[in-house]
């Protein structure tokens, strides 16, 4: 008995070892493909840059920056009583109309964007892959119901629904991320993932799993889903682009009650009427506006590069 368990234990560990080796091998191959593409590397570089800002912010607040002056939400610098003030050595990107340091705001907001992005992407992909796999696997009425719901959501511009929802409920970043994730799950991603799942469903190993006595649940979650992951990862990137953009638009329109984000920074600029002072108040407009553009386009670029790995047809043009 004991020898049996230890034997099976050794077997599992060796299986995991083999899996790990396979994973490392395919990851290395995919990375080589990804690194060939300058577009993806640029995107990754931008993401790393913003991630660095996220990490640096608490460190800076605990060491160099005085938390009372550099607090992104209610900081105030007694040495610069006239706000907004242009960039100086004390405030590298100037100060906001209420006296906060813009660089600190920018770095603090980057953290919110990453939380939003990761959460929305995970929600989207979880729902979209599950729905796609279930629809493809069962077919028939299940497929029909799921696809009709998807049709319904695709038909309606997501932003108009988000505007109404954020007007009705006071959403936090986490709640907003979940709502955006759900809406973007019921869209093109589910359709594409389903069609991918349909092509996997007819592969021999699915048949083999069924013959070996695997249940529906086992087949969907152990055999279908892992093979859908590459394409799901791709749609994760596009979901992130959408999430960052939607959050920024909602905050910009003044419909969101989060403590600080790039959209809120622009909203402040807009409501105080500095939005067209490009020559004198550029530091109120461009840091936040370009950050939104750069981060969402970075995820889009990484998505494009992943697209070429996932769809070999697109390679070498």
């Amino acid at each position, binding site marked *: 008995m004991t020898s049996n368990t230890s034997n099976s234990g050794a077997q599992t560990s060796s299986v995991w070892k083999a899996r790990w080796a396979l994973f490392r091998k395919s990851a290395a191959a995919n990375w080589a493909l990804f690194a060939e593409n300058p577009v993806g590397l640029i995107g990754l570089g931008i993401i790393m840059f913003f991630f660095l800002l996220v990490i640096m912010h608490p460190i800076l607040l605990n060491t160099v920056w005085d938390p009372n002056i550099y607090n992104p939400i209610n900081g105030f610098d007694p040495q610069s009583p006239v706000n907004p003030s242009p960039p100086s050595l004390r405030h590298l990107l100037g100060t906001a109309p209420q006296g906060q340091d813009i660089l600190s705001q920018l770095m603090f907001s980057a953290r919110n964007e990453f939380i939003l992005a990761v959460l929305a992407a995970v929600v989207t992909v979880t729902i979209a892959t599950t729905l796609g796999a279930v629809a493809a696997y069962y077919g028939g009425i299940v497929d029909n119901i799921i696809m009709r719901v998807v049709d319904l959501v695709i038909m309606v511009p997501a932003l108009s629904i988000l505007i*109404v929802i954020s007007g*009705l409920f006071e959403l936090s970043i986490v709640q907003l991320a979940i709502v955006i994730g759900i809406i973007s799950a019921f869209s093109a991603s589910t359709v594409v993932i389903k069609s991918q799942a349909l092509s996997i469903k007819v592969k021999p190993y699915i048949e083999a799993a069924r013959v070996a006595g695997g249940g529906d649940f086992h087949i969907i979650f152990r055999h279908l889903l892992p093979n859908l992951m590459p394409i799901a990862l791709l749609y994760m990137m596009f979901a992130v682009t959408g999430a960052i953009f939607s959050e920024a638009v909602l905050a910009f329109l003044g419909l969101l009650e989060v403590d600080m984000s790039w959209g809120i920074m622009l909203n402040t600029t807009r409501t105080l009427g500095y939005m067209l002072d490009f020559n004198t108040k550029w530091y109120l407009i461009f840091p936040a506006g370009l950050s939104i*553009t750069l981060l969402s386009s970075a995820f889009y670029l990484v998505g494009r590069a992943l697209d070429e790995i996932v769809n070999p047809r697109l390679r070498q*043009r």
Partner: protein
Amino acid sequence: MWSYIGKRVFQMLITLVLFQIATYILIDLQPGDVTDLFVGNPNITAAERQRIAADLGLDGPLYERMWNYLTNFYTGNLGVSMVQYPRPVGEILAQRLPRTLALFVYATVFSFWFGYVAGKFLAWKRGGRWEYATTIVGVTLYTIFTPLLGYILLWGFATKLDKWVRNTFGIDFDLPVSKFSSTSLWRKAPYDTNTVFNWMNLNFIILVVIVLLAFFLSRYVPRNRREFLRVASMTVPFALSLVWWIFFSGVGIYAWDLVIHLFLPILTLTLISFGGNMLLTRTSMLETLREDYIETARAKGLPEKIIRNRHAARNAILPVWTALVFSLSSTISGGIITETVFSWPGIGEILVDSVSNSDFPVAMGALTVIGVMTLVAHLIVDIGYAFLDPRIRVH
């Protein structure tokens, strides 16, 4: 074809009702109702508040209220705005619908056409610096934060270019930064803004129809006159209608006022969708150029221009047209943002406005109108696909 359209319209109606039910439930999830406004008022007791709720039909169960809402909606009663109090929602939306529709249609048509033409030439002359430059421009336009683009254009055109034109040519363009029309100018106008605007749209539609007809008929005229007919169809009617608007309509100055107000919103929305269309046409065209029949056409010794325009571009348009289905809703979202940035009173602007003022009858009406607009646009795109792809037309 007709049975297909009938089936699609039926599906659309079901989708619309489901959408309305979903939005109604969503808005119903919000705690409280309109009687909560009187909670702090000592003159209105709890019993009185209940009576008000009963009068307004707010005390019934969810399905009963929803049924009331739906029957009212389909008999043309969309409720009354709470902010602009006695004004019916239907009237507010009817006033704004032609504007949003025009903005959406113009931007979609322009961005599709220019994106298609630009992508076609880019794929043809591929490689080198051009490719990088245009890809960067395309991706930037595709992902730029829409309000930022709007404000950059506003700044560039309405302040910088305006000043430059005034200083160099002495003409005061006075490009407006917001609104649909100049109130001071329209006070003396013989018609209201929407009448003139609808006439302009009708004029535009007639021009498009003439061009399409000319292109269709040019197949049946001798080869050497084709180009002449096409160019004439694009210029002569346009010049004639311009002359009519300036000299004979009597509202030329008012029409011009609407045009300069419309210019920047349309430019913004066109640029946003242009990037995606251009990139996609390029990709699709590159794929088409590798097909065997392109090689065959080359081997036959056909001129490059004919291979590009007839063999490659006509097949490359199909994926771009399919992608239009997905980009429609993003154009509508972009329209909401553009209207808000330019304070241009359309459906999108009233949606944002009513939501921020908790004017939910208007918000629901606007949301439904946007939904209907998207549904109809999808239908038109699907029908257009059948015209573009003969393989579908047969079935």
